[in-house]
């Protein structure tokens, strides 16, 4: 199982990580809002995550750290 860490305050909610995740583990958390005023991306299905780092590769703001 892999562990993803998000620098949530730097997230701009663009959703590129969500659309690129092959396992559908990520989502935009529309219920919350970060310091910059965006709804950030969050992990919703940690058990399915395979640690491929596709999300981090496509993240334009480099906010995701992947550990495996």
């Amino acid at each position, binding site marked *: 199982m*892999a*562990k993803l860490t998000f620098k949530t305050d*730097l997230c*701009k*909610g*663009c*959703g*590129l990580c969500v*659309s*690129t995740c092959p396992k559908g583990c990520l989502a935009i958390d529309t219920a919350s809002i970060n310091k*910059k005023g*965006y709804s950030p991306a969050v992990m919703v299905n940690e058990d399915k995550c395979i*640690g491929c*780092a*596709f999300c*981090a*590769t*496509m*993240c*334009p*703001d*480099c906010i*995701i*750290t*992947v*550990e*495996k």
Partner: protein
Amino acid sequence: MAVVFDKPKSLADLPLHYCPGCPHGIIHRLVAEALDELGIEGKAIGIAPVGCAVMAYDYFTCDMIESAHGRAPAVATGIKRCRPDNIVFTYQGDGDLASIGMAETVHAAARNENITIIFVNNAIYGMTGGQMAPTTLPGQVTQTSPYGRDVNQCGWPIRVSEMLATLEGPEYITRVAVNNVKNVMNAKKAIKKAFQNQVEGKGFSLVEVISACPTNWGMTPEQALKWVDSDMLPYYPMGVYKDRSAAKEAK
């Protein structure tokens, strides 16, 4: 647990000013990763353009300098000739490199200056609010071409990589994209090779990166990356347009 992906240390830990979903952030990271992996951060000098990436000097931890609009290859020529041991790169957009800076780019390539150019092509002027650029596609709607680019009036978009590859001068000219994970990986290899060429003193290397501009194209970031695939890449095909060393080895 081992860290498999983290921010490269050549990229400062600052919030980027780019719009949500702008691939500039991805390309910044690829450049920073190349600097890290080649261990040249300490002697690299970057040149920021005028355009959306005008504040790139804040984001890279190597030495950076700002140049006048389009003149980054000229500034890079000066720095590289004065300090040949440093690694000099420019980071330019299409409005900067392919429009006002076309002369500097072509002549730097013709002289085979030993510099690396990262050319971000998103087919539009981003910072000024989405005007038509020299690389805007035929029929593409922008602020200054509200009925779509009319090629009879405005001419055809310029394919910079193909054009520069016809010159004898340059060492390495390639076009990559950052619209999906596979293309990002290929872009990373190309950018690293462009820096490696300079370390080895081979000469002028230019990597054209097909990027997106969700804000000014009026799309979501996801739609914009799909539009790159469906509309931009057919006009600007990816590939290596010139690789002199590889061509020599093949002979």
